[in-house]
């Protein structure tokens, strides 16, 4: 009988919400721990087993000099490294500092800026090490998390759709919110949430990041044309939880002028 695969969960700059998704697998959690050894999951356990690890889940973005070193060490100890959530895959909400002067940010929040060690940017894990799979979402979808972990352990491609939220709206029979004049990021945002926001009568705000081959400018120009949004609104819409994802960054920047 082969040994159970070892799973490690690592946290960088983040809100803990994506690793919480693992603890939110209430029905599956005890079954999972029966077939996988949770070797390092500091949020859940004092016990930490040494590496190497079969799978590392990495939450959060790289925002400090220490995190920059740490991710290198984690990569060396991990056969498979999966970055989970918008922070790990695109820098997250804190990547808004990439569009500003970090010195101004530090002095706006802290009385003694000299105590603060922070990088000028918040960046995705893949900007620092090779990542085997990126799971999107702010937060991630827990079913997708289970699918990715199981698929990679079985050495198959995870079944995660790369198409837009629009497909999910059609599938669940939600009528388009833009028809009613509500701005929506759904056409350029990757599926995975089951089109939650439009089903609750609001526009998608892009928390799963850019879909495969998005055309942000086209959507933005269309909204301007229909008087749903002004350029300054579009800057804000593209710059939220995935502001530093290349496609959203480019679109957001283009409306800044």
């Amino acid at each position, binding site marked *: 009988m082969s040994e159970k695969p070892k799973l490690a969960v690592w946290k960088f700059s*983040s809100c803990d*919400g994506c690793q*919480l998704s693992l603890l939110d697998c*209430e029905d599956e959690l*005890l079954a999972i721990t029966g077939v996988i050894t949770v070797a390092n999951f500091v949020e859940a356990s*004092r016990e930490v087993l040494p590496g190497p690890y079969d799978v590392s889940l990495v939450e959060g973005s790289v925002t400090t000099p220490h995190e920059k070193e740490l991710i290198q060490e984690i990569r060396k100890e991990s056969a498979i490294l999966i970055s989970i959530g918008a922070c790990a895959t695109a820098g*997250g909400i804190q990547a*808004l500092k990439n569009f500003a002067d970090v010195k101004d940010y530090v002095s706006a929040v802290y009385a003694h800026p000299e105590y603060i060690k922070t990088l000028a940017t918040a960046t995705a894990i893949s900007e620092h090490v090779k990542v085997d799979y990126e799971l999107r979402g702010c937060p991630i979808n827990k079913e997708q998390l289970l699918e990715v972990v199981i698929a990679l352990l079985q050495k198959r491609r995870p079944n995660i759709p790369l198409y837009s939220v629009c497909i999910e709206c059609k599938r669940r029979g939600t009528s388009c919110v833009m028809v009613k004049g509500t701005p929506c990021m759904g056409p350029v945002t990757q599926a995975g949430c089951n089109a939650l926001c439009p089903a609750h009568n609001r526009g998608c705000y892009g928390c799963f990041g850019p879909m495969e081959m998005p055309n942000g400018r086209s959507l933005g120009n269309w909204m301007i044309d229909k008087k749903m949004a002004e350029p300054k609104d579009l800057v804000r819409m593209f710059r939220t939880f995935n502001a530093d994802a290349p496609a959203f960054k480019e679109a957001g920047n283009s409306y800044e002028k």
Partner: protein
Amino acid sequence: MAWGFMFFKPSHSVGERGNPSGLRVTMENAHNEKTTTIKVNYLARVEGEGNMYIDIEKGQLKSLNFGIHEPPRFFEAFLRGRKFSEAPDITSRICGICPIAYQMSSVHAMENALEVKITPWIRKMRRFLYCGEHIQSHILHAYLLHAPDFLGYESSIHMAKDHPQEVEHGLQLKKIGNEIMEMIGGRAVHPINVKVGGFYSAPSKKAMRDMVPMLDRACDMARAATKWVATLPFPEFERQYTYVSLHHPDEYAFNEGQIVSNKGLDITPAQFNATFEEIHVEHSNALHCRFRETGACYYNGPLARFANNFDQLSQGTRDLAREVGLDRIVSNPFKSILVRCLESFEYCKEALQIARDYEEPDSPSVPVHPQAGEGHAWTEAPRGGLYHHYVLDDEGNIIKAQLTIPTSQNQAMIEDDLRALVPQYIDLPDDQLQWKCEQAIRNYDPCISCATHFLNLHVKRS
């Protein structure tokens, strides 16, 4: 060679991260005095990352620090220039464990600034949503993060081997908390249905009624959870706290009321900054909250709500409290786990009542018009008071944001508890002393990912 040492560096290495159970350094100094330093760089079973340093010299506690090295994320900085309507979605990303608290404090502060009056339906459904978050957060903490300490397990996964039914029970109750949040919030982590002025959509009457049997069951489960937790061995440890919480005469306060204490404090949320201050001290290098006038720290969270709002609990919860040996004032912080279960029982009953009485509204929100203004709100997050303060320009854009979080408010008290606790247990072997301290920190369910204010701890080694 143990992997932990391969990457060993004085601080912040994978090696230390790989060893949250602590490092112990015993040294003889020039005067032949034994000095022990216990250093825990990655405190386990808290949300986010914290560390703790204890120096003991000649059997006496010399210095102690509880620190947080969550990287700063600068929410208060990048909120500037964002629209008032974006605050609930953005600030919820401060914490994946208590996103509703951020949404509630931000919407109430914005509605205060914009002079918005919400409907009774909105008010009630916000309570329903908050009930869900408190249940999931409390039960997550009690069963998965804290109970293992009392029974000597490294984690709930270890605990499940000997106590499978209890862990399963906890997971199922936590799941019901999540389902309440999903019903009105859309999802459990970073819900999407909350907005300034109310909700984007309302659940159907049928969907709410369908929850009744589950919520009915949840009440029994929370009662059983309270009784089970009451059987845990509680360390003997009593403190005299100043309890600070929200208080409302007609309900167990969540979103509305005065900020009060058991020592006579009675202020509006707008008076927060005149009463409290956050200080950036060098020795611990993290913002501590304290009374501006006296410099004293205070307790906020479950014990404070319980002490200040005991009369607002339902009769059933007060009876259950007395059955498990608690009254209004709980002065043993290790019993906070029990108060979390009692609160969960109260919230299950309230959620059940709301689901039973639910009617669909004419509109799930009220109109909101941008204008210049200043707003304040204090709402009760599961782990304590969360204060938001915003200043808006005449288009409703944020000029200034201040977010004062529960763990920041409790941090000074956590250290204070540890200073009182360590001498009491100073003869324990280091590993047990360390574990006892960790357990005491976890009394506060410190949600360290609330990174608005938390910094690295600078360590002074003896």
